[in-house]
């Protein structure tokens, strides 16, 4: 479906995307990364908005610059907010649908169907200028799906949405995927991406840090140290206990002095052995957290690896 081979995009001397190679089969993908990591640039390369400075980008086995018809299989919901325009929502979606080559009548039918699907009811006959953020997001989504594309590309779809709208968006995307369609969703709101996609592309500094399911990526990171944060009443005593253990690579005191941060490559063994270390030691553990099992932690680890910190 999507193929990039050593794709690089430079804006003058600024690197937008740096030597990315990947092949994506139809499915649901989450493109994760902090702001400025190159997510939007990557999406723009895939949709043909930008041409790669080096390398190639193929979409459905075609280069967009050579075969624009392939864009008929793609629907894009960009991050940019719609500016207020004095056009009705239905008119605008119909116009956008006509630009896929549909007749006015068919475009109108598809526009209405798409707006029904995204839940924009009577407001569709009002000017977009009077829409709320959530309604504008629905209109943006409607114009992206009205022509029934195979691939839906969304850039920060949850941005600015209230919790109800986010829930609705999540439900919609799950239904979309269940119909056999593909989704590529760029976001920095990780738990919402996790709710929709099972396959992740982690990007940072224009580089693709990891590509796979959560298990596959965590599997890659087995040999990298993780952090376990422990809040206790006697950090010094705990430090004495921990430093003798071979499963612990290192530790450091928390800034507030109320515990330790343990760094280890063998997280599971630490969990298993910790009760034994504390037996009869009268050290009370108040809190123990490890964010390593979430995508957030995964991204942080990968970023540290990328920066050479670990």
């Amino acid at each position, binding site marked *: 479906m999507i193929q990039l081979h050593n794709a690089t995009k430079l804006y003058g001397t600024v690197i937008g995307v740096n030597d990315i190679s990947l092949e994506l089969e139809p499915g649901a993908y989450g493109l994760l990364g902090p702001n400025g990591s190159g997510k939007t640039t990557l999406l723009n390369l895939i949709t043909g908005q930008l041409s790669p400075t080096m390398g190639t980008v193929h979409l459905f086995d075609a280069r967009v610059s050579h075969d624009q018809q392939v864009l008929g299989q793609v629907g894009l919901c960009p991050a940019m907010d719609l*500016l207020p*325009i004095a056009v009705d929502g239905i008119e605008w979606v119909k116009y956008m649908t006509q*630009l896929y080559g549909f007749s006015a009548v068919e475009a109108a039918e598809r526009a209405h169907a798409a707006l029904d699907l995204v839940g924009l009811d009577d407001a569709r006959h009002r000017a977009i200028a009077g829409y709320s953020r959530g309604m504008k997001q629905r209109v943006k989504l409607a114009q992206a799906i009205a022509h029934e594309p195979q691939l839906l590309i969304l850039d920060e779809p949850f941005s600015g949405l209230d919790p109800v709208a986010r829930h609705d968006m999540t439900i919609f995307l799950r239904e979309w995927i269940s119909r056999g369609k593909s989704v590529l969703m760029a976001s920095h709101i990780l738990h919402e991406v996790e709710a929709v996609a099972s396959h992740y592309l982690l990007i940072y500094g224009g580089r693709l840090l990891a590509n796979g399911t959560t298990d596959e990526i965590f599997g890659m990171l087995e040999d990298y140290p993780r952090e376990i944060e422990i809040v206790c009443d006697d950090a010094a005593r705990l430090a004495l206990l921990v430093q003798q253990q071979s499963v612990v690579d290192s530790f450091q005191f928390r800034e507030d002095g109320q515990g330790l941060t343990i760094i280890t490559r063998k997280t599971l063994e630490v969990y298993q052995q910790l009760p034994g270390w504390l037996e009869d030691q009268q050290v009370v553990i108040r809190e123990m957290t490890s964010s390593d099992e979430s995508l957030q932690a995964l991204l942080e680890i990968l970023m540290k690896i990328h920066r050479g910190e670990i």
Partner: protein
Amino acid sequence: MKPQYWRAVFTHEWRNSLAARRFFSWCFLIGFPVLIVGLLRYTQRDNPDPMEFLAWGAIVFVLIPGICCMLSLLLTAAPFLQAELEGRSWIYLSVRPGARDALLLGKYLYSVSRTVLMATITLVICMAIGGFLGEFRYLLAILVLILLGSLAYGAIYIFIGILIPRRAMVVAVIYSGLEFLLSLFPALINRLTVQFRLRSLLIGWMDWENSPDLDFFASSGLFSEVPAWQHVVILLTMTVVLLFLAGLLLNRREYIAIRDE
């Protein structure tokens, strides 16, 4: 490119153009030449030596195929890309197959058709007020000049709009001023201007070449007596070439949304 692509753009632009908020621009562009001609008529009412038809004809030529068309195209053709970039709708358009060409052709045809319609309405009213509605030859000549001028200037402004999207209108105004001045130079350069061609066509079609009032123009080479078809061919060629180049540029350039500056 299938016709429905550019037709969608064309229809969309026309629908927007007829909205209430655009009413003022229609009134202004139709109204100001009518007002000037009306005031002229008023100044001439007691004149024992009224203005000759040639003078009226020259004034209407300057007003309608000149300024009225230029202003209309300045509003619609020059900022055609700037409007999409500032309105952040470019990204929606450019991700559609063939949308760039559709946008170019659709907006160009919209701006030309709007300009021709507006100028025609203005022309008829001005000629009625001026009292020379019976001059059919002149009426036809000006109608053709409106069409040719709109096609040519529309292409030029569209090209400027793609070349310099952020400053399209300012550059188009500078270009128009420069072109008008260059068209008055008795040298080869004036033959490259649209104004020269339109002027020559009008003088030729109205048989004004030998009018003593245009002696200065004739002696200074400010119009040409070559056959009219040559001027028409040159104007149409210029139009086609510029549109082709505009299409090439539009498809090859990468545009990102710009701030409204």
